[in-house]
């Protein structure tokens, strides 16, 4: 363990920890933009500058040393932090009210912390560049006027999904996040997993049809056999979002395109909403009593006339464990082991 002092408070942390780790352990806020706990550190935004033993360092990367004296709010650190944020804001789209990240935006949070004056902003503010929003992906858009080049999306694509569909392109003030060959996201290698928008600190990468849920329910994804932990976002009586459960040992919060975006079947108007009985080749709505009485009568009749093995049931790998249990129990109660499901398909 290494002991150091952050703003005069002593703290002991594991060797190899960063100043940011030590500060967070003490509950001391250091502004960050490009730092994300799931990813390797980048140290690119410079907003976490602090003074350590009299030198300016990035807190997210600088390793702790025994007896180190850190000042998070020295005048030098404050000045750098403010300048960095001002420069970031100077060409940032200022239309916050229509941004889906409004009030959950990391840039707003950091700007608030460092204190931005209207006078300074007016001096620095240049025109927001006219860059077309990449709307090619059906689920989310990339609005580069809201991008702060923190690289979190780039690292997410490399380190979480691994497909590495995006990277920084061009140079200097033209630097931007691009796909290979600078094509639209939908035409690129992007797998639309949406992990980048989960981590984007601003509204640069954002859901297109986002609706904030009014409550969330913990569950499990209904698609493949991986069994990712999810939270279903509910608004009224509709499911409006899915996000990964970070505490799940299966997926640590990660999802794929189907799991994250493929929930519209739940609220779909084509859902079956009443029992149907086919009469003269046409389905007619029926009551539950009518439908179930008919099914029971036909099953019992068939078993009586032809023996129970004239019945067969196909259970479902989509249904719950408990439902599968009851399904096989019913068929076996009726006297047959003719039960299977799609395990082989």
């Amino acid at each position: 363990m290494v002991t150091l002092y952050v703003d005069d408070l002593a703290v002991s942390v594991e060797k190899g920890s960063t100043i940011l780790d030590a500060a967070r352990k003490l509950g001391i806020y250091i502004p960050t933009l490009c730092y994300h706990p799931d990813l390797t550190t980048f140290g690119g935004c410079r907003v976490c500058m602090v003074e350590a033993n009299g030198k300016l360092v990035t807190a997210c990367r600088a390793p702790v040393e025994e007896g180190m004296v850190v000042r998070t709010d020295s005048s030098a650190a404050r000045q750098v932090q403010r300048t960095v944020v001002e420069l970031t804001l100077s060409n940032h789209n200022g239309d916050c009210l229509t941004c889906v990240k409004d009030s959950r935006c990391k840039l707003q949070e950091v700007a608030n912390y460092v204190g931005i004056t209207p006078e300074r902003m007016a001096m620095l503010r240049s025109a927001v560049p006219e860059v077309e929003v990449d709307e090619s992906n059906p689920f989310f858009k990339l609005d580069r006027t809201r991008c702060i080049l923190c690289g979190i999306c780039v690292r997410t694509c490399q380190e979480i999904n691994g497909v590495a569909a995006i990277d920084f392109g061009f140079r200097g003030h033209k630097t931007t996040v691009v796909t290979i060959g600078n094509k639209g996201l939908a035409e690129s290698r992007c797998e639309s997993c949406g992990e980048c928008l989960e981590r984007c600190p601003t509204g640069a990468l954002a859901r297109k049809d986002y609706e904030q849920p009014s409550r969330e329910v913990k569950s499990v994804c209904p698609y493949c056999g991986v069994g990712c932990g999810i939270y279903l976002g509910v608004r009224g009586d509709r499911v409006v979002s899915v996000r990964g459960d970070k505490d799940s040992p299966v997926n640590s919060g990660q999802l794929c395109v189907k799991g994250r975006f493929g929930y519209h079947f739940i609220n779909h108007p084509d859902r079956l909403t009443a029992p149907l009985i086919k009469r003269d080749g046409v389905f007619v709505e029926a009551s539950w009593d009518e439908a179930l009485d008919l099914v029971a009568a036909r099953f019992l009749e068939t078993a009586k006339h032809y023996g129970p093995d004239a019945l067969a049931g196909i259970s479902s790998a989509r249904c719950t464990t408990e439902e599968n249990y009851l399904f096989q129990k019913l068929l076996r109660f009726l006297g047959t082991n003719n039960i299977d499901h799609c395990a082989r398909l």
Partner: protein
Amino acid sequence: MAGLATVLGSGAMTNTIGEIEDAGAIFVIGSNTTENHPVIGYRVRKAVRKGAKLIVADPRRIPLTEICDAYLPLKPGTDVALLNAMTHVILREGLEDREFIANRTEGLEEMRRAVEKYTPEYAAAITGVPANDIVRAARLYAGADSAAILYTMGVTQHTSGTENVLSLANLALVTGNLGKPHAGLNPLRGQNNVQGACDMGALPVVFTGYQPVANDEVRAKFVKAWGVELSGVPGLTITEMFQAAADKKVRAMYIMGENPILTDPDANHIYECLESLDFLVVEDIFLTETAQVADVVLPAATFAEKDGTFVNTERRVQRVRQAIKPRGQSEPDWQIIQELARRCGFEWQYESSRQIMEEISFLTPSYAGITFERLEAGGLQWPCPSADHPGTPVLHVGKFSRGLGKFSAVEYRLSAEQPDEEFPFLLTTGRSLYQYHTGTMTMKTDGLNRFHEEELMEINPADAKVLGLCTDDTVNVTSRRGLVRSKIKLTERVQPGVVFMTFHFAETAANLLTNSEVCHIAKTPELKVCAVRIEKA
């Protein structure tokens, strides 16, 4: 499943998803992991970034081949030859784990004799994979401290499906890659709760927890608990059921949440079988292709509208929770089944899924310690035999369920259908990242359809040239069982002589073409190989 159960004593993923990223080597065979199990795909890519060696065996150049150390582009259906040759190399070069073999296995000599003739050169002639690459793959796999095998239907959906699994098991056993972390033999299951359905005995030969219906002691236990007489005669598998329907032996059928007209082989045949039933009831969330053939359709609730559990591919039982109320008059399947049971004269009184799980735990040794209370804190991996048992992340530690791990002497056999003059191409099938199975769920999300809205059969440019075909042309794909019209996509992803289709789309139902010939042991149909003819439409 049957294969794994034979050699190890139980059929399920032996290890845990979280272990994959620290494996020394990963052998992916017959699994397009990044498209079909994307989050496991992320783990595989991470493992490679951390230094794992990746071996991929697949007839198609799937995305994982871009980052692999060895790619084995085998001809569809030649898995046994490839795997036997890898085992041959390992034994020839002395790369086997002698201590593990001596202490934990039986039958090595018989297996050694069987693989003797499978030299890399012999296998190369059958599989089309260069002999050098087979040798390299064997060395990479055997050279790692821990090596994990990941496989799916590309291995099992063959008439030799069980043999394929047995020869994979040989590979894991001979290198001691079982019963330890970051290793194992891992079938990745394709559906959210296919593991749970198997565990619950939604199978013709077993009750819950794989307790055989033919075993008198087991049956006596269930007779006592349920209070009814039970049949000890093994039932029919899906494929057999359909044939029995056509033969008028099965007269009434109950299908819950499945769409066999699109998922099962030889769709025309399935349709005819269902039509010949006296009575068909289908319970589903949408009016699927199969539901349209039914006499009665029962509206079910989705996963978001009920409580219960799903069991994932690593045997983890996890809680599913109700978020909203069922749509219209739809109801959770367990309530529908119970109502039906009551009308059949059985006095069932379950008030919740929780109560059903209590009965499951009571009757199922591997689930004995699983309760909804414990699941609130997180999932539990079976076997979980008692209330204080923490669950089992890695199977077969110290001892196999059957005692010793058994080597199998397995011979390569030709697939049921081979290309010939009339049907010169091999069709193989699978799923894509953006659609799921028959699309009942995914096609309700417009964005997913934007990425994949119609079938584009994959064909190698060299074959296309010979046939005079260009991208987006429409072709007639004909097999001995049916005909499908599909647009095509020219891609090197498939090898010459092989074409690939998904089975997502009703308009281009690939399973009109596929062969219902089954593996003689596991009864899995040979969906991955059938002979077809391609003609410009």
